[in-house]
């Protein structure tokens, strides 16, 4: 158990360093912030002073050495546009994205468990076909288009929900729905497959032969065994929520890391961009560690071997 954890931790740290290195070179490729920050024909002295202030006048290798050394101490420099450190800007936007993702993950997992279990219990019937088709339709919908049609119907046509913002709970409905789209599509199929495997296994047949109550059997015993495949894809799905957060940030102007990243990219705010991608990387790595831990805790077979 300890060796398993330490091995996972070491590989996570190596991955993280890789992400930091990649981010540095990617951000350098996006052109100089000078293009955005100064109007054309600005005084060369001012540009030079700007470059010196942000260390842009040194050779790339030297910039990289300084960057890496500081990054290891958690310092990604100050935002070029906002008057605060890049790391503070990135972490500041994380809580609302985490809350949004957590709500979306709970809603979609709940829906997927209900739909997937129903499909498995009534497998190869009309119920199953309908649910499978429905989940495929959800999985085939582009999130940005769903979001726009949501605005069109609920905000413009029926005037039930606001088009943007995050102040009232009503404003959260469309963003959460947008983030749920893909996960429900994927998870329903995973739950269905796992439940069919369990329901056709020996121990369920045995329990039924002994006169066990059906509903209790499905929801207490079968579902618990079907949890493993669900947990193993939950990490990937939660990581995919970042893609959704970008869309939600652009379409609904919903605050969070997605909006910050798109904004930083358009403004060439290197430090914020670097810090955000690293923060997203750390979150995804932590998430995968937690998923592995839960996996080990839930399944005694993994713990023992």
């Amino acid at each position, binding site marked *: 158990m300890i060796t398993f954890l330490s091995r996972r931790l070491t590989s996570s740290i190596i991955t993280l360093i890789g*992400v930091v290195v990649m981010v540095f070179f990617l951000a350098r490729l996006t052109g100089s912030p000078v293009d955005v920050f100064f109007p054309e024909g600005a005084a060369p002295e001012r540009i030079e002073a700007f470059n010196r202030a942000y260390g842009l006048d040194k050779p790339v290798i030297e910039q990289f050495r300084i960057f890496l050394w500081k990054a290891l101490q958690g310092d990604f420099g100050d935002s070029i546009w906002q008057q605060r450190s890049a790391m503070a800007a990135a972490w500041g936007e994380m809580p609302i994205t985490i809350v949004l993702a957590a709500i979306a993950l709970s809603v979609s997992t709940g829906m997927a468990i209900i739909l997937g279990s129903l499909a498995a219990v009534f497998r190869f019937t009309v119920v199953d*076909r309908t649910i499978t088709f429905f989940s495929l339709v959800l999985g085939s919908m582009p999130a940005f288009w769903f979001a726009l049609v949501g605005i069109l119907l609920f905000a*413009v046509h029926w005037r039930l929900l606001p088009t943007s913002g995050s102040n009232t709970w009503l404003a959260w409905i469309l963003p959460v729905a947008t983030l749920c789209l893909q996960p429900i599509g994927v998870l329903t199929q995973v739950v269905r497959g796992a439940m069919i495997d369990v329901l056709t296994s020996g121990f369920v047949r045995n329990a039924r032969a002994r006169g066990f109550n059906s509903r209790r*059997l499905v929801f207490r015993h079968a579902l618990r065994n079907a949890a493993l495949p669900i947990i193993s894809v939950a990490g990937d799905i939660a990581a995919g929520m970042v893609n959704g957060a970008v869309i939600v940030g652009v*379409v609904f102007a919903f605050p969070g890391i997605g909006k910050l990243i798109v904004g930083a990219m358009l403004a060439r705010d290197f430090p914020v*961009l670097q810090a955000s991608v690293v923060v997203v990387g750390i979150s*995804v*790595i932590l998430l995968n560690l937690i998923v592995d831990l839960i996996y080990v805790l839930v399944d005694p077979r993994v713990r023992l071997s």
Partner: protein
Amino acid sequence: MTIATRSSQISPLKRIFNSPKWEMFLASPLAIASLVWLLFVTFVAVIGPIFVAEQANHQDLLLRFYPPFTLDEGVSYVLGGDSLGRPILLQLIVGARTSLIIAAFVVGMSALLGYAIGLYSGYFGGWIDNILLRLADILHTVPSMLLALVVLFVLDPSITNLIVVLGITRIPVYLRTARAQTLEVRERVFIEVARAAGASHWRIMTRDVAPMVFPTIRTLAMLEVATVILQAASLTFLGIGLQRPDVDWGMMVADGREYLRSAWFVTVFPGIIIVLTALAANLFSNWLRAVEDPAQSIHFFSKPRRQKAE
């Protein structure tokens, strides 16, 4: 051996029509519908732009936001006009070519590279395997769209750049699968026999291991088609990767976004086409997967009947 030689004498078309898969195909209306739609979109994407490319980009400001479902301005305006008075139907046809080219090349490139690297990595192992796996992990840690977004923002907007960047972000999917399967196949007895018979590593890898891994990669690639269509559309929707006069369906949705209140159809129609195409790809690969899994394929022959709840 004899079976293999005999079946190769029959023409490939006959072999398809005589196979149980074909019967299962005919028994599944959804599979037929999705294949027909995919073939139709491909046909339109290949042939269509030859005839309508010029008309599609013809701007007529009198026909800005021309309402859909009337034939007064001819068939080309049956789905309305966009913000510059271009016919939406013809734009969709031209966009189909871009969207399908991107999807086909991204899937092809990432599947091929992932397959080859995964085979090599799994077969030889060692430090190269370690490094490759670590690289795949890093690619996996940064959400693929975020990575594509950051890289494509720098590069000049072009279909080639979009294909290369999206393709690279999708490689790890195949690499991991191919590697895991290779590790398993490598330990089988027939590989040991081939090695004892003096076959070279290259020969074993290409002749013995690769064919065993291929079906999984093929299934995976089919599943990835829909994912890639959606991802490419998301990027072009965000205004990254493509530039006029190139157009794809995601870009068309973005064009309509500003006029959502006054002209809903500019946004809605391209989206419907994306949904239909991704859905068809999903349905077809779902069917293919079910057919290739013997445990499930039985049910395509048995009539659907209500099973007792368990």
